[in-house]
Structure formats: structure tokens, C-alpha cells
């Protein structure tokens, strides 16, 4: 059973979003954001939300 084309497009959009979150230019973030531990790191939580959405569309899309 393959993934529908619509779901695939959405997953790719979320992958692009994940790339923005992970590789966003450090100069766009306030200095404190770069040194925070993982549980206070906004990039970690944002990545987690994006991954959850990729799973949702992979399973139910």
C-alpha cells in the first residue's frame, strides 16, 4: 500500500519546514535560543511537532 500523492506532497512540505527549523540561519535567532537545553529549546519542540504531522499524513493521508 503506497502513500497517496496528496499525502506525499504534504509530507514533503513538512520536510521542508523541518529543514527551515533545523538549519535556519543562527543570525535569525536571539542569542539565548542557540544555547538553551533541549527541553527549553524551541527548535526541538517545533521539530517534534513537524515530525508528528509527517507521521499523521504517512499513516492517515
Amino acid at each position: 500500500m503506497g502513500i497517496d500523492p496528496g499525502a506525499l506532497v504534504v509530507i514533503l512540505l513538512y520536510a521542508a519546514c523541518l529543514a527551515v527549523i533545523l538549519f535556519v540561519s543562527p543570525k535569525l535567532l536571539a542569542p539565548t535560543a542557540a544555547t538553551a537545553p533541549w527541553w527549553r529549546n524551541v527548535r526541538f519542540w517545533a521539530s517534534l511537532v513537524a515530525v508528528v504531522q509527517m507521521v499523521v499524513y504517512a499513516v492517515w493521508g
Partner: protein
Amino acid sequence: MKLSALDLGLIVFYLLTVTGLGLWASRGIRTSRDYFLAGKSIPWWAAGMSLVVSDIGAKDMIGLAGDGYRYGIVMMNFDFVGCILPVLVAAFLFMPFFWGSNVTTIPEYLGRRYNTSVRTFFAVVWSLFMLATVATILVSAAAMFEGLLGWSFWVSVGVTSVLVGIYTAFGGLRAVVVTEVFSCVVLIAGATLICVLGIREVGGVSTLVAKVSELSWTREHFELLPSSSHPAYPWPAVVLGLGIVLGPAYWIGNQAIVQRTLGASSEDDARASYVFCAAIKLVFPVLLVVPGLIALALFAEELGPPGPGWDANQVLPLMVKRLVPPGALGILMGAFIAGVMTNLESYINSASTLLVTDLYRPFVRPRASDEECLALGRWLVVGLLIGGALFSYQVKTRFASVFEAFQTFLSFFQGALFALLLFGMLTRRATAEGGVAGMLVGVATAAVLSATGQLYLWTAFWSFVAASLTLVVVSLMTTRKSDEELRGLVCWIR
């Protein structure tokens, strides 16, 4: 429907708590910055919860239950694709520029990036849109109150307007956010309650799926992304119209949304508030769409198949009337009132901010004192409520679905707005002339497509394409601003 003493007690408790919180938060409002941006003091968690209920309110509870009945789980994409995706991108790519440019409104940013014409156009359009939204929310409120309590349309609209006006006029953004945090909790509790009661009545999730699938018109109700031949939400339109244009334009360019992050206590808090909002939105759309499916399983014979003239707004009130026992009804009514009040106060506060910041100060009285602007902001809250109430009857009589009305309003100018924000923030080459031309062509394209009966998702997408192409072509033929003029406004020049 008769409310029990416990239900009435819960509703009164909710109303008194919200009004008390709103008035408590109104203390210490001395400047227009306190009023419009809460003195830049909102913590991330409060701004995040406030973002959620600024977007999801009565119109969504009523509208998404009705559209969930009509179209199924595809409606969850309005949050999954149309919110979470743009919110995450906005948090890391766009928000730093709104924050860094120290603006109060989105049109103010557009004015500094392009010119006064663009600023004025979007300030006027947003103000009109917000007035229409206020009217739409009041129609949602009236639908619920008519269905549950038997109140007339005008009594429902009047009571709702007065309740919200009391503290929004005094407290500004701080009162709005404080009450929204409380309301967010009540709203989630209420939405969860109706889902739990409904699924229990149906006999479980698997029975729900089986019963809905038995019906002849529900072939794609459990498709998150339906086929490209779907009459209302074909997946290409969902992905391109909603995911690429309407969602980003709404979450990056909507004053009612961005104002919360501009009022956050730091740039980090502003970013965290967006991410917190996205996390809550992983669950919220499920709670709003599932009631429509429950109604299909339980009341399909009574409500009938959706067709011309079918009223989507009757679904949720019928469910509440049939499923919710005395006592629990008070919680649900509290949630619904929370949805109405938070949505209303958000849009009224933001419209007032726009009118004062982008129209009154620049054009009517450039030397207006801060006290004058503060007083005007408060009076505008009252005026906007009255205007929205008068306009609400038009919305009620002309649109079958409240949610569709809301999205149709958005699609007219969201494509052009997003094109201007995208090119304005990501490239220094976009010029003022390009911005004006893109804006006009984008809105004209949307108007033509809408008049020819195109789906609003396609209307938004093609107006974005037209605005983008025009902006690029005209910008290449005209002179751009210097790097110094663009500092803090464009991604690569901070």
C-alpha cells in the same frame, strides 16, 4: 430547551469569572502601547493559548461540526495544513522581522517595506474583513442560542455584544489575552466533553466508522486528503490553496494573530508562543470535526444528506440538545460562550488597533496625543460591536455555512497579501511600485475568479500567483530601496 439550576450556575460562574479576569487585567492601562500591545509583557504560554482561541472559536465549533458532517475529516486540514505548517515556518522565518522592526500592526510593516498606499489599502481591507468576521461570529452565537435557549436572533446578538464590550473596551490586549487563557481551557474541556459523550452514545470509534461508512454520500469522509475530483476540497486545492496561500497569509499576515506575538515579552517568547500554538493544534481539530461524524452516525436520518439549502449550522445545536445531560450542558455552554467571546474580543481589539495606528494617526490627526489614541481605541471597540451586530443579519441571510462565509472573505485578498509579505521579507528586490501593482492585480484576480464560481481555495492560490508574477515583473522594471532603508525589514539585512 430548559437549563437546570446547575447548568445556569456554571454559565453564570463562567461569565463572572471572565468578566472579573478581564476587568482585573484592565488595571494599569495608561498608554496606547499598554492597550494595543499589553505593554509587551505577555509570556509565551499565554500568547500561545491566546493564539489558539483567537483562531478557534464559536464559528469553528459550529462551522466545523457542520462541515465535518458534510465533508468528513478533510476539514482537519484547516489546522493540520493551514495552521501548523505556516505557524512553524512563521516562528523561525517571518516573526523575527515583525519583532525586529518594532511595528504594532502588519499594515505598518507593509507601509515601511513598500509605501503608504499598500499600508492604507490593507488597513482598510483588514478593518472591513474584521467587521465581517465580527458579524460572522455573532451569527454563530445566535445559531447556538436560538437552537438551545430559543432566544431570537437579535436578542442573542445583543446579549453577546454587551458582554464582550464590557471588558474589551477597558482592558485592551492584556484583558483579551488573560480571558483567552481561561477560555482556552474551558473550550478544550467542552469540545472533549461532546466528543466523549457522542462516541459513547454511538458505541465506540469502530462503530462510528462503520455507521458513517454505511451512508451513500460519505465515500470520502475518512480521507484526510480526498481525490482530485472531490466537489469542495480536492487535495491539490487543499495543498496549494490552503497550505501554500491561505494558511500562511492568515498566520503571518492576520493582525488578530500577529498582535499576540508582538505583545510577547521577548523575541524568544514570541517564537515559543507560535510553537506552543502548533502543539495544541495537533489535537484541537480532531475535537472540532469528530462531532460532525458523530452526528452522521446518530442523526443522519433526521438531518438528511447535505444539498442545496441544507443548513450546516444546525448540526452542533442538535447534538447538544440530544446528547448532553443536565449539568454537563453548563460546561458546554460555557465553552461555547468562551469561543464566542474570545473570537469577538480578538477581532475587535485588533480592528481598533488597525484603525487607530494605520488610519487615524497617519491621516486624521498625526499629532494626536497618546491619551487621545487610547480613548479612541476604547470607543472604537463599542462602535465595531454595533457595526458587526448590524451587519450580522446580512451574513445570516446570505450564507449557508458560517465557516464558508469566513473563508470566502479571506480568499479575496489573502493571495495578494501573502505575495507582498513573502517577497517583501525574503528579497530586497521587491519595490514599492511592484508591491502596489501586485496587490491590485492579486485582489482583482480573486474578485474575477470568485465571481465566476471558482472554489475559494483555487481563488486564493491563483490570486497569489497573479500577485507574485506582477510584483516580480514590475519590481524588475523599477528602482528598489537602499539596504539602509530596508534594514530590519528584509530577511538578509538585519
